[in-house]
């Protein structure tokens, strides 16, 4: 068996909306690049490369969520938990760009849409929810694992909502929005559960072996803050 194509192809969303999201993605990626500099240190550089490579590998592992329907990790929650929101969004974007260019998965012009849904919405929603949860849950390997499980579900459904919004304003076909939205959100709730299990298991493993390499354990500052505890 061979992993199926998994990202949005060109032609599903019309040209104007595709161009708008390409620009949105580009601007936000430049912002992420600028913000990421403050986070990058000697440990985070190889860790960010590993996080991207690991997300690529796990995305190949489609699991069954309904008869004839599979799901796979999107990776936003994992990336943020391990390397933070700015570096994390860039990690997922690198995966999506390589998948589109080398593996013909995800249309070239649809890259802005795919990056917006999975890398940017994925990372920023994760960061917001994870920060809130970590105010309640203890910042221990177990606490962080529970937090990333719950966060994964929200972040995957937020990414799916991104597609629903893009299709609603720019779909090249006119299918019932109720059907598209209902199926997308229903399937992605189940995919979110799978993403949650994988993300929690991975974060728990890294937290127990090298807690100093887990961003979520070191402290999550507001998005405007750039200082980070050493």
């Amino acid at each position, binding site marked *: *068996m*061979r*992993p*199926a*194509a*998994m990202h*949005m*192809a*060109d*032609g*599903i969303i019309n040209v104007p909306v595709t161009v708008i999201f390409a620009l949105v993605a580009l601007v936000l990626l430049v912002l992420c*690049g600028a913000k990421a*500099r403050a986070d*990058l*240190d000697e*440990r*985070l*550089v*190889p860790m*960010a*490369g*590993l*996080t*991207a*490579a690991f997300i*690529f*590998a*796990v995305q*190949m*592992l*489609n699991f069954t969520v309904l008869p*004839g*329907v*599979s799901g*796979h990790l999107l990776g936003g929650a994992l990336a943020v938990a391990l390397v933070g929101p700015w570096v994390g969004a*860039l990690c997922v974007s*690198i*995966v999506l760009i*390589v*998948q589109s*260019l*080398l*593996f*013909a*998965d995800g*249309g*070239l012009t649809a890259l802005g849409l795919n990056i917006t849904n999975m890398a940017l919405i994925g990372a920023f929603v994760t960061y917001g929810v994870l920060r809130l949860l970590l105010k309640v849950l203890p910042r221990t390997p177990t606490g962080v694992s529970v937090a990333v499980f719950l966060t994964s579900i929200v972040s995957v459904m937020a990414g*799916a909502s991104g*597609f629903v919004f893009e299709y609603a304003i720019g779909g*090249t*076909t006119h*299918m019932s929005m109720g*059907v*598209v939205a209902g199926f*997308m959100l229903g*399937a992605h709730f*189940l*995919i979110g559960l799978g993403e949650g299990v994988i993300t929690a298991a991975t974060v728990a493993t890294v937290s127990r*072996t*090298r807690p100093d390499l887990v961003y979520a354990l070191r402290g999550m500052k507001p998005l405007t803050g750039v200082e980070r505890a050493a």
Partner: protein
Amino acid sequence: MRKKTTWFILSGLFVALILAGVVSHYASSSPDGLDSATLKGCATDAQGRITGGHCAAQKAKKHDLETGPFAGYATSGLGGGFASTAVSGVVGVAVVFGIGAGAFWLLKRRAKTPEQG
């Protein structure tokens, strides 16, 4: 980079290579959530191509690079079996790690002021 960290990164890469190179063979080939949603209402053939009906992906285009050497997570010249997926998975992990670590290293270097070295 401390030796301990080097070992951690190498172990992580090893796990990623096993997942992409071996475990990927056992992954589901069913369309994912997005494809299932956008193909709802259309009939498809064994390759997943739309043969009729009405669905959100009706006007989806073929990928511009679909003849590339690793298109569709298969390796050209190796057929569609285990080796084909394994090689594409291993290449993907290596390329993503290389580009990722390289890009972040460049970003970090640009971030440092001269007195910090």
